[in-house]
């Protein structure tokens, strides 16, 4: 039998799409019936082809090797004397291969008819939608489709996540979560009044470090203390510093004053 190399001008080592493509080529070249493959011959020629590729330093895709091993396995089985007929139940590997080849051939044939259809229909032309002017303002419209719904959800969650990861947003969040409570501020002021009888409002806060929110809370706290008669305030002129004075009472019973309990500004 001629080697594939010698046969090179016929084969031209054309690029077979896959191992089945090559097998089909060999089956057709040898004028075999697909159901009546001479495994010995086909295996030898298939291997020759792979060797030829190797000699030419062509990369052999793993799928070619996989089919090669299947072919060799079938060949070796056929060479063995058929002593144990019991193995009948096991599927004939040749049968498996033929099944796959037949299935592949069906699709190959259909691919051929698709090609014809493609050529036949390539001369059909369509037109673009007419630009239709609607009286109502244009909205980008989407079809109601479950996949789009899911995508939108993931999209909106991702955006939400990004916002969370944005450091400036994070700061806002931290500040928001900082529980600037009226209760705490009132306690702060009373504690300061314990140490000094008079405190300027500005002393209650370090203006550089404290947020406006905290100052406002402090101001409310101060007013509450005055209302509860725990402190007095004085301010000589408008916009002057406010002076907070102790009333000598440093107790605060919030338990009875439910109003303040959870009041977070």
């Amino acid at each position, binding site marked *: 039998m001629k080697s594939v190399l010698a046969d090179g001008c016929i084969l031209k080592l054309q690029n077979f799409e896959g191992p089945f493509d090559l097998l089909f080529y060999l089956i057709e070249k040898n004028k075999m019936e697909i159901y009546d493959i001479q495994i010995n011959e086909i295996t030898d020629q298939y291997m020759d082809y792979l060797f030829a590729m190797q000699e030419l330093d062509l990369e052999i895709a793993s799928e070619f090797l996989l089919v090669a091993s299947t072919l060799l396995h079938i060949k070796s089985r056929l060479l063995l004397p058929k002593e144990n007929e019991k193995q009948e139940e096991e599927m004939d590997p040749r049968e498996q291969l033929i099944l796959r080849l037949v299935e592949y051939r069906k699709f190959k044939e259909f691919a051929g008819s698709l090609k014809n259809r493609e050529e036949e229909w390539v001369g059909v032309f369509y037109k673009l939608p007419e630009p239709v002017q609607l009286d109502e303002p244009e909205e980008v*419209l989407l079809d*109601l489709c479950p996949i789009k*719904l*899911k995508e939108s*959800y993931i999209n909106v969650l991702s955006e939400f996540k990004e916002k969370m990861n944005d450091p400036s947003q994070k700061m806002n969040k931290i500040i928001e979560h900082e529980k600037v409570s009226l209760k705490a501020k009132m306690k702060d002021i009373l504690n300061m009044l314990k140490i000094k009888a008079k405190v300027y409002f500005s002393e209650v806060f370090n203006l550089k470090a404290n947020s406006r929110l905290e100052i406002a809370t402090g101001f409310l706290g101060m007013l509450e203390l005055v209302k509860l008669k725990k402190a007095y305030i004085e301010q000589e002129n408008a916009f002057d510093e406010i002076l907070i004075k102790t009333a000598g009472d440093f107790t605060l019973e919030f338990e009875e004053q439910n109003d303040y309990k959870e009041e977070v500004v």
Partner: protein
Amino acid sequence: MDLKVIEGIVEAVLFASGDSVSLEKLSVVTEIDKKTLKLIIDNMSISYNKASRGLMIRELDGSYQLCTKKEYGQYISMLYTSRKKQGLSQPALETLAIIAYKQPVTRAEIEKIRGVNPDGVLLKLLEKNLIMEAGRSDVPGKPKLYGTTEEFLRSFGFRSIKDLPMLEMNEIESVVAELPVD
């Protein structure tokens, strides 16, 4: 060439062009002299007058263009408005997605996730009967809860809420982990 075939070619070429095509070009394509071709097209125009034809040939400065007849314009806009009814804007779809997956959900939760006041969109979704009020939350202020409707299921072809496409594992890990806890 058969006169019928020439008419067919003219119609096909005008259709595929979408735009107007000059008599000159049509003459080249059909290999009919311009004068004869003009007569043929004029004759075609007359046969387009039949009620069963939705199209007409317009002559524009020595060019020809296929277009729909005026009297059928209202039906075309119906096509687009009926499409409109079935569609949702991106903000609406996003809001609907949040409601569908997190229901029952409050307005505040939606606003938190989308970062935008959702009132307008909620109203639209309520109007379209895609969402409904679904009781009230236990949190202070007892805000309204929203859920999806039967119309929602119908519109998306779901049999039940369980039919909502599942979020993939990797999507869940990267995104849902960051979901606000309510």
